[in-house]
């Protein structure tokens, strides 16, 4: 039932109230509607608003359960939009993270929509792992009464594209559930495909909804970090500082960026990420336009907007990350035999993408492309997420980030990552559009006295700076252990003097560092964990929570392996039991990762 069809007869509201509600809702976007509904529901729970009779009567059989498994927030975003669309239809929606979903409820579900991403070599995001495993286990129930649909997010340049989504889709089917729609596979430029799926699946659900009572949404108040500012409607903040943290002889440029949230009222929790909308670098835009002999003033259409090519490339289009479709398109534009051959080979394409940008394509493979064609083939600019490196208990209306400038040199030409270059070269007062991306899977223990082991090499140390600020503000002493690593002690010891101060004050109990290039053999954080195995095990026995932040590809795996070994060598567990041990830690939120 749509709100516009709502009348006083079908609701507990007076006609006047209905009119007011209609007027308000007509101004709101789907996401805002979802938020408002969540807000009202929460208010109702607190007894401030009387819950509607309809809601009270709604039975579980009529609920659409929307589950998401999300590492970077994209999956959560798609699921939230879906929830809003479903609510707009009057459905009762239960939106929840797979990580918080009680698997025993599964056999009662009748309508289930899942959004899940895939990472690395076909791995499930952290919050989806347990459900993913459960569905494949013998404990998984028959799901004969279930209708479902899965949307998979992935990156087609990887071999195991959308693998987790495929797994979910296949497992639901294997357990007897009925597919509402075929699996929707979405690439990095998922927005349009996801919107299409949301619309279709809302329609597909319709025949299975028996009644159309007033909807109640248990949109989980996922964040205390709520504000009106979102990915779609970010806050325009100002950069206060972009300070290089690495020494002058470092081979990397890592920045400490402070952003002023001003009067926005934005709140965040330690563990959250900040989404950054950035503008592409002017030199890069110019290089591409002049390289293709195009006119920067040429008008192009992006979505429903008509603007100059220059403006489109600066603020609307992704220029610094390639995707397979673009390589393929460029191969055709340029009719270059080498590029054509390369674009046919998935692995070669993937390697190529890692080392090139659009500007390189323009330079190496000259092509005749019109402004419209160019804009058409480029993906929309997407914001980048950075783990927040501050606590509001300490910095109040500021938010701090630790940003590694992505830079590379190709044929004498410096190439940069879009957002990191934007932030690294930002001067005081530079405007930047931001929003908070909550991360409920990276939270300090509820009991502040619980010991924490933090493993954060490189920029992975960012959230632990936030953790320490929070703990100091909360008056927690000690019970904290940080593992940090980077190439060189003298050059790359991010926030060195702050850690020294925390140690001196007793706020930080231990700091073990690994500087990989300061001696003949490379030493990483996992080696330090192994060296301290006995103490690590003792901390775990004392209930410590373990946090890992940073590189997902290698570091997080090596650290995981080192932890498993600790359980084997110090705890006397078998390798299988060690796996189970950490699996249990994970489900009890004692083992959390923020890896990318």
């Amino acid at each position, binding site marked *: 039932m749509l709100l516009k069809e709502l009348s006083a007869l079908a609701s507990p509201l007076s006609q006047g109230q209905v009119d007011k509600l209609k007027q308000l809702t007509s101004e709101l976007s789907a996401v805002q509607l979802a938020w408002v509904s969540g807000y009202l529901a929460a208010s109702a729970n607190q007894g401030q608003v009387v819950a509607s009779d309809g809601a009270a009567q709604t039975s579980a059989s009529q609920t659409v359960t929307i589950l998401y498994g999300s590492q970077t927030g994209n999956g959560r975003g798609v699921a939230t939009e879906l929830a809003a669309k479903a609510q707009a239809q009057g459905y009762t929606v239960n939106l929840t993270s797979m990580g918080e979903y009680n698997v025993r409820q599964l056999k009662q579900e009748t309508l289930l929509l899942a959004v899940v991403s895939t990472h690395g070599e076909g791995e499930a995001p952290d919050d989806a792992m347990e459900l993913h495993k459960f569905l494949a286990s013998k404990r998984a129930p028959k799901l004969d009464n279930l209708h479902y649909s899965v949307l998979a997010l992935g990156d087609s340049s990887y071999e195991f594209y959308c693998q987790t989504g495929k797994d979910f889709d296949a497992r639901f089917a294997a357990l007897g559930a009925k597919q509402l729609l075929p699996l929707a596979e979405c690439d990095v430029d998922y927005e349009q495909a996801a919107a299409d799926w949301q619309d279709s699946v809302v329609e597909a659900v319709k025949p299975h909804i028996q009644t159309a009572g007033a909807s109640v949404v248990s949109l989980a108040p996922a964040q205390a970090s709520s504000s009106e500012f979102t990915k779609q409607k970010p806050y325009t903040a100002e950069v206060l500082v972009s300070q290089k*943290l690495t020494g*002058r002889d470092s081979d990397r440029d890592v920045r400490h960026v402070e952003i002023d949230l001003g009067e926005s009222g934005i709140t965040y929790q330690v563990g959250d990420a900040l989404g950054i909308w950035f503008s592409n670098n002017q030199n890069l835009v110019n290089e591409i336009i002049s390289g293709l002999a195009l006119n920067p003033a040429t008008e192009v259409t992006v979505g429903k907007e008509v603007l100059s090519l220059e403006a489109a490339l600066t603020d609307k289009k992704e220029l610094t990350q390639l995707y397979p479709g673009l390589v393929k398109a460029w191969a055709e534009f340029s009719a270059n035999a080498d590029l054509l051959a390369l674009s046919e080979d998935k692995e070669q394409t993937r390697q190529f993408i890692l080392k090139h940008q659009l500007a390189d394509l323009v330079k190496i493979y000259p092509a005749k492309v019109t402004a419209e064609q160019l804009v058409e083939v480029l993906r929309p600019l997407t914001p980048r997420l950075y783990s927040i490196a501050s606590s509001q208990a300490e910095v109040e209306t500021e938010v701090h980030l630790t940003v590694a400038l992505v830079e590379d040199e190709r044929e004498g030409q410096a190439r940069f990552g879009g957002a990191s270059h934007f932030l690294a070269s930002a001067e005081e007062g530079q405007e930047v559009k931001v929003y908070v991306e909550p991360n409920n899977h990276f939270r300090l223990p509820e009991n502040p006295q619980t010991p924490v082991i933090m493993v954060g090499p490189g920029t992975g140390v960012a959230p632990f700076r936030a953790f320490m600020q929070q703990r100091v503000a909360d008056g927690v002493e000690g019970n904290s252990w940080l593992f940090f690593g980077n190439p060189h002690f*003298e050059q790359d010891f991010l*926030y*060195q003097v702050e850690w*020294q101060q925390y140690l001196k004050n007793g706020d930080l109990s231990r700091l073990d560092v690994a500087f990989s290039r300061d001696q003949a053999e490379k030493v990483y954080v996992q080696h330090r964990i192994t060296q301290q195995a006995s103490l690590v095990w003792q901390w775990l026995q004392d209930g410590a929570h373990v946090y890992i932040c940073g590189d997902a590809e290698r570091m997080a795996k090596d650290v995981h392996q080192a932890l498993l070994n600790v359980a084997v060598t110090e705890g006397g567990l078998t390798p299988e039991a060690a796996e189970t041990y950490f699996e249990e830690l994970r489900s009890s939120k004692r083992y959390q990762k923020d890896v990318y």
Partner: protein
Amino acid sequence: MSEQKLAVNEYLKIDSDYLRGTIQEGLDTQVTGSFSDGDQQLIKFHGFYQQDDRDLRNERKEQKLEPLYSFMLRARVPGGICSPAQWLDVDKISSTLTTSNSIRLTTRQTFQYHGIPKRNLKTLIQGLDRAALDSIAACGDVNRNVMCNPNPVESKLHQQAYAVAKELSDHLLPHTRAYAEIWLDEEKLLDTETHEPVYGKTYLPRKFKMAVSVPPDNDVDVYTNDLGFIAIAEQGELIGFNLVAGGGMGSTHGEVETFPRLADDFGFIKTADVIKFAEAVMTVQRDWGNRVNRKRSRLKYTIVDHGYDAFKAEVEKRAGVKFETKRDVVIGDRGDRYGWVEGIDNKWHLTLFIESGRIKDMPGKTLQTGLREIAKIHKGDFRMTSNQNMIIASVAAEDKAEIEGLARKHGLLGEVLSATRGHSIACVALPTCALAMAEAERYFPAFIDHIDALQQKHGISEQAIVVRMTGCPNGCARPFAAEIGLVGKAPGRYNLYLGASFEGTRLNKMHKENIQEAEILSELDGLFGRYAEERDAGETFGNFTVRIGVVKAVLDAAKDFHG
């Protein structure tokens, strides 16, 4: 009478368990590149200082990084002599374990490394140990590296003088096993009681410097030492020494109770009594020296405060021998003899001018590579001079050409050297020395260019003038014994001192305070002009400035230096 509070370092020494302190813990912590404040005093006894790159202090503060700490380690090389094999090891260590990629020859005939990260200290000291070198007591409140004239001409006399220097160094070395335990992983002996028969638990009140000179050379600047031995020979055989004591350069700007001083003559002693006298002088200083105020704790103040006669009597009492009347001796040049010199044993010796003692590969001047290449073929030895130069000593006539070829190829030889530049030295100063208030080594070559130009202008280029520059009044380059002394006050600003004798037998005195380059040069321009016109035959610049009354002669430092 209540016990007077001693200087902080005295308590550190007492509590250090014979110089161990918490150095091992400091090495183990990886969170900082520094040692604790207390250990920073103790590590000096092990031969190194903590420093940081002062050019980068502010920048790194912004980067939330601690200062760029590193260590300066000075080796103990009595008399400055090492073998080519040792030099090759010394050279290799500099390029593998230091960030400065250089070797710095010092004004006390040894070498030091700059830019050693803490994590490399142990490896470096072990490397020195394998080369039969060490850094024990190269710094700290002990007997420092013993200098000895490297006279390559009178080689027999030099041999005998060198043997004395070596014996002094060995005999007065601290006995603590802290160095062996911490750096060389030697076991803690079961009897952990360490005895310091000469020093005791608190060592000396302050550093203690010794030199052996072989007249007429005075390259070691014998009077600037706490204890000096001026060799006396008869028929080319060493028979004994004129003992001098109570010299020292260090002072503090603006504190008139501190002053540089040249040593007093005490009389002649026989070679056989050298150790007795050295021990006596050192123990009197150990027991009488000022342990309350470190700025007044050198031997020079002990002698001033207790009186010459009382000090002399106590030394004679402890030595069990009386001083004889000092022998007449001529004190001559403090410079080195550049180029080839033939010794009495028909061996040849090549003295290479090393500007500011910095051995480093630079464009067109591959000094470090050059010395390495020479070390690979050289059959004699290397001798570091107190003017921060290097002598390739004991070269057979037939090997001269090859060595000279290498020296020329690598820019160690061949540049025309002015008489003044050859007699002048500067300390390290910025950016590494924590004490420096102004530049020295980095600025000095350009400053000497100006002096050379002024001397040319006035037609006095042939006259060597001893010019010395330091970044602070601590005096590493012995600036108060220079005819033109420049001592740093602030960046770009120096005190100008004039009037020391060319031979190093009279101190200089401040002429102008806190002035900049332009004023220094205009002052010297005027004085050089008068010197060219008015000097007596053979009169040196320092003597001239005193004679015409530009400065008063400093005869009794305690009264005259500030007076």
